[in-house]
């Protein structure tokens, strides 16, 4: 066994993920927040935007659900663990910072996928046809990885006060929802809005979901998938690099 080898570090990252799921995700309030937050946002827009078709709004609901759940807990894990000194324990264990971040991302990805599947089931229960299941599955998987990387990126500032990070997290997450074609179709956006939307990975995921339920899309689907892959790689590499730099400042 080479403790520093890639496969061994992935195994240890999986141990971090299981620990996260046990401690942070399988909690009543977290699960309830994960489900209710997007549902209430969806209902608010359903009431206020009666002219938008249900299929459009359900696609938005699925996009929001994945985005909010995959970024709900992960930004606060490092501050929590820094405060409880458990991060110091992890730092003295034979696991790299990259593997710790990857483990947190796995947990966040699985949580995001789990909750999002519920919203997909809601869509199906409302009578929406699922036209492209494999495309949707691929999109959910890629976007869950991408959003969990965003969640970890939000945790980069080396503070051990979770409320600071949660405030920063809200400041970034909510505007992203509004520029990503969830409530305003991309076709109806002004050019500057479209330019902003292009920088949000949520835009491409929402486009994939819409395509999966309605068969219509704004960007070509391979383009959406490629954009999500690119965002995932860049954001994952970025968050790992930055956490490696800021980790000692948390101790």
């Amino acid at each position, binding site marked *: 066994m080479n*403790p*520093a080898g890639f496969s061994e570090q992935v195994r240890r990252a*999986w*141990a971090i993920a299981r620990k996260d799921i046990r401690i942070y995700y399988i909690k009543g309030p977290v699960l309830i927040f994960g489900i209710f937050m997007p549902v209430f946002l969806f209902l608010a827009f359903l009431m206020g935007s009666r002219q938008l078709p249900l299929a459009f709004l359900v696609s938005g609901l699925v996009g929001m659900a994945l985005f909010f759940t995959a970024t709900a807990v992960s930004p606060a894990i490092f501050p929590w663990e820094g405060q*409880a000194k*458990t991060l110091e*324990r992890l730092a*003295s264990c*034979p696991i*790299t910072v990259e593997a710790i971040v990857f483990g947190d991302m796995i947990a966040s990805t699985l949580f995001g996928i789990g909750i999002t599947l519920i919203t997909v089931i809601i869509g199906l229960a409302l009578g929406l046809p699922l036209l492209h299941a494999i495309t949707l599955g691929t999109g959910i998987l890629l976007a869950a990885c991408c959003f969990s990387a965003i969640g970890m990126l939000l945790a980069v500032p080396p503070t051990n006060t979770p409320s600071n990070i949660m405030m920063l997290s809200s400041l970034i997450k909510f505007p992203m929802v509004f520029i990503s074609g969830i409530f305003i179709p991309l076709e109806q956006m002004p050019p500057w809005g479209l330019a902003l939307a292009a920088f949000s990975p949520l835009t491409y995921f929402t486009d994939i979901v819409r395509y999966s339920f309605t068969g219509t899309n704004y960007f070509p689907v391979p383009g959406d998938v490629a954009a999500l892959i690119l965002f995932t790689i860049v954001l994952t590499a970025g968050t790992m690099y930055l956490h490696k730099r800021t980790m000692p400042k948390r101790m």
Partner: protein
Amino acid sequence: MSEAIEVTDLTKIFGTTVAVDHISFSVKEGEIFGFLGPNGAGKTTTTRMLTGVIPPDSGSALILDHDIQHQPVMAKQGFGVVPETSNAYADLTAWQNLMLMGDLYGLPHAHASDRASDLLKTLGLLERRDQKVQAYSKGMKQRLILAMALLHKPGLLFLDEPTSGLDVQSSQMILSLLRDLSQEGTTIFLTTHNMEEANRLCNRIAIIRSGKIVALDAPEKLKAAIDRLHRIEVSFDRDIPANGLARLPGVVHVDRTGDKWQITVEDRDLVIRSLVTFSQQQGAVIATLNTLAPSLDDAFLRLTREVPP
């Protein structure tokens, strides 16, 4: 005997404060090495650098032949850490914490389970293995932390104040386990404020003050080294002349307190031999004879006293 820890010129600076100032020392394999110093002297910062928690600003530390900065995973695989503050996951049970450690050290599950059961039994926690750590007392948490550090049978153990604030039972249990580990060949790097603990356990002690190591030696040698002069307390079964004692070779000063004589000497061995001859010449019997060596507390206080500007 090879070195388990080899520190060269290790330095850490926080802002304008030099927390650890170019320290160098080594710890031999199988040794119990005490690291003492007053609060803020740089003990914990040094331990954190040696365990790879924070990087040094300059210098290097070889831990079990691996550079802690350049091969951190390989170095960390070989040691266990018991920090001062319990840092087990409070929301997990003792068993879950141990299994997490098993996974993080790459132990096969069956091996980790057997080892965890043995350690929990040794440390008196087996019956509460499925209880969440948040319900544990401080002593139980500290014993669990020790079990977590020992799960992978490390060759080197770092302990930061392991018995601080613990009840006598937990303290004794931990100290007894440390002695057993040392006999089995585990190298122990012990940071403590407890002089008695350091005196009884450690083969060598380093004393750090203001980020610099001011003394490094065996406890008895440290005690002896702080004073050039030593004191001997002796009593006889009859009166003997004071000037006779004062004239003995190596005697610097003689004081009488009650029925005892306190003799200040330069060479204890020489004076004790002379006292035996002197008592025979006087036809007296030595009733009591004590060498009043400075304690480790004295040595610590003397060595860590700030030098006036």
